[in-house]
């Protein structure tokens, strides 16, 4: 009987994992960085790391199906003559026509309108489908100014000056040639079929003092009627929020790194910016320090998925949240019904993120006339409205359990954290302790 040394189990490196190895091989073969859509995919501290305490002897709950729990929110009352009044504190984030198909944009407008909330244009101008089907439409004012015009500015319900987005703080837009159809090209004043790398900086202002003058101009053009939002990526949320307030914003939008993009470099998405959870408390703190909390509204986006996420964001001091990726999934993005076609593209339902290539089997991130027929704007809009309704009911369920007759009465004291990281970021105690890392000298 011969003795054989016991073999070890083959072990893959945690550092050089399968994805990393495949990316090295891909880079070596192509000589170009990987471009994709969506937001950060790595695991990050998130709302899952927070829990609500619910009612107890010292707090009493509201009856689930009988007692009212208000969900409405008013955005832009600081300076605007016509603030935005929403029935629910969940809005649809900016996504461009060009990146998305016309039917997808229409569906977003329909769903938002059915739910009493707003939707937002994107880096490609305002389309008739979108304006026509959106009761409340936020018009983005972007560095590229593609399609920016006086008529659309005046028929918008609010204006969002976009400084950055969570997936790529400091990066501009990117729309590759295969998605530049005749209609997209015309709206952007560019030749058909060429790559569009939109600017990362605004062409006619730099810094907070200029921004203040730019906001004044937009207010003067629109006769001080419309709320002016300022959207920033989750880079320096305390200072960005404070500077936006100083510049005169009615609403500050902070987008964390889980927030999606139509297309940018993978290395950018995964390595620049802060998680949504880490952005909220600094932004709220800036508003509180300036005495502007609840006077200037704060919208947070990036990885909002359900009513619990909404409730947690609101409890941390946010006025409303925005959804992008989740809204696209409600419309039909990454649906397993197209699995065979995802496989042909070398991916699988749930992982498809090559939105820039314009071959989306679900017909959402495409300009292909055949593929986009797969989106029925009425049915998809209905699905989005259903989803928004569920999120709202979920958030109300939690708020009532915490004894709150309004979602906006949720507070940090209703929360604990499961991890030290989340406790430090959210500024709430680690579960089972009264320890808030970074507070009281610890």
């Amino acid at each position, binding site marked *: 009987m011969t003795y054989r040394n016991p073999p070890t189990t083959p072990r893959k490196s945690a550092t050089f994992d399968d994805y990393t190895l495949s990316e090295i091989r891909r880079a070596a073969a192509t000589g170009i960085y990987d471009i994709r859509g969506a937001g950060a995919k790595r695991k990050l501290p998130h709302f899952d790391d927070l829990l609500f305490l619910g009612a107890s002897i010292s707090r009493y709950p509201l009856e689930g199906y009988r007692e009212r729990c208000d969900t409405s929110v008013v955005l832009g009352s600081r300076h605007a003559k016509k603030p935005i009044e929403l029935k629910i504190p969940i809005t649809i984030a900016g996504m461009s026509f060009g990146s998305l198909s016309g039917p997808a944009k229409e569906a977003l407008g329909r769903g938002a309108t059915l739910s009493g909330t707003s939707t937002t244009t994107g880096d490609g101008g305002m389309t008739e489908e979108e304006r026509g089907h959106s009761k409340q439409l936020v018009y983005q004012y972007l560095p590229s100014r593609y399609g*920016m015009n006086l008529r659309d500015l005046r028929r918008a319900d609010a204006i969002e000056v976009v400084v950055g987005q969570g997936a790529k703080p400091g990066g501009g837009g990117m729309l590759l040639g295969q998605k530049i159809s005749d209609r997209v090209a015309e709206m952007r004043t*560019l030749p058909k079929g060429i790559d569009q790398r939109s600017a990362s900086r605004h*062409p006619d*202002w730099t810094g907070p003092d200029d921004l203040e*003058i730019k906001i*004044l*101009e937009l207010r003067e053009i629109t006769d001080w009627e419309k709320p002016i939002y300022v959207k920033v990526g989750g880079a320096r949320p305390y200072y960005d929020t404070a500077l936006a307030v100083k510049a005169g914003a009615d609403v500050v939008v902070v987008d964390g790194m889980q927030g999606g993009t139509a297309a940018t470099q993978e290395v950018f998405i995964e390595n620049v910016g802060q998680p949504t959870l880490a952005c909220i408390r600094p932004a709220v703190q800036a508003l509180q320090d300036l005495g502007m909390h609840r006077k200037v509204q704060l919208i947070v986006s990036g990885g909002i998925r359900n009513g619990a996420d909404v409730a947690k964001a609101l409890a941390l001091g946010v006025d409303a949240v925005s959804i992008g990726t989740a809204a696209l999934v409600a419309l039909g993005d990454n649906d397993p019904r197209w699995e065979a076609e995802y496989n042909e593209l070398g991916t699988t339902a749930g992982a498809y993120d090559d939105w820039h290539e314009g071959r989306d089997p679900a017909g959402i991130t495409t300009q292909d006339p055949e593929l986009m027929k797969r989106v029925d704007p009425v049915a998809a809009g209905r699905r989005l409205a259903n989803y928004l309704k569920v999120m709202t009911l979920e958030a109300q369920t939690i708020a009532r359990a915490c004894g709150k007759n309004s979602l906006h009465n949720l507070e940090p004291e209703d929360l604990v954290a499961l991890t030290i990281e989340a406790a430090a970021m959210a500024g709430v105690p680690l579960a089972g302790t009264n320890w808030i890392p970074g507070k009281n000298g610890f």
Partner: protein
Amino acid sequence: MTATKLSKAATHDHASRIFDLDVSSLRELNQALHNLTPGSNETAWEVLHPKGSHSVAVGVDQPVTIDVRGSVGYYCGGMNSGSTITVHGSAGPGVGENMMSGSIIVKGDASQYAGATGKGGLLVIEGNASSRCGISMKGIDIVVHGNIGHMSAFMAQSGNLVVLGDAGDALGDSIYEARLFVRGKVDSLGADCIAKEMRPEHLELLQGLLDRAGVTGVKPSEFKRYGSARTLYNFNIDNADAY
């Protein structure tokens, strides 16, 4: 006397409607301009004592004439749609930004970003323009009698930029389909911007622009034309050094 009374009196005399920014606010001025409806008789406006105010006569969408007697701050005539604005002085940053149509004439100099992202209309600067003149222009025509600064026509998409004097560094960097005509020297061209042949149709186009801008005694043949080499239109890794 309030500005409103003063302006009404002026209207009765069929003279210009006068807005004195010493007595009335910028808000009143812009609101009065926005209240104009098609066919209004108030077609001539005069703005006194602008003293560097920002956002003078922004978002005007009726074909009126507005004479601004003095220098203005940022964004004068921003998003102008059809009006003719004459600044009898100098203009701060972003004069005529995102202009849709109409015309703006600056008798003095203009600061940075003149005509930024303009979609249409004509911007004439009788003095010099600073850096980033015509940045991201999308159909506007800009005629500068003097010189322009660095990074002008950066990412310029369409329209025409005419410079009777010199251009600074990195002219037309990352330019798309805009046409640049420079009579003097160009310090340097930006990425993907090259000198191009001046064909008869360009000479004709340029003559038209000079005529519209009231330029006399200057021949189109004295200019050189610059535009896109179109090598950066679709990403190619071998061009990465150009960025």
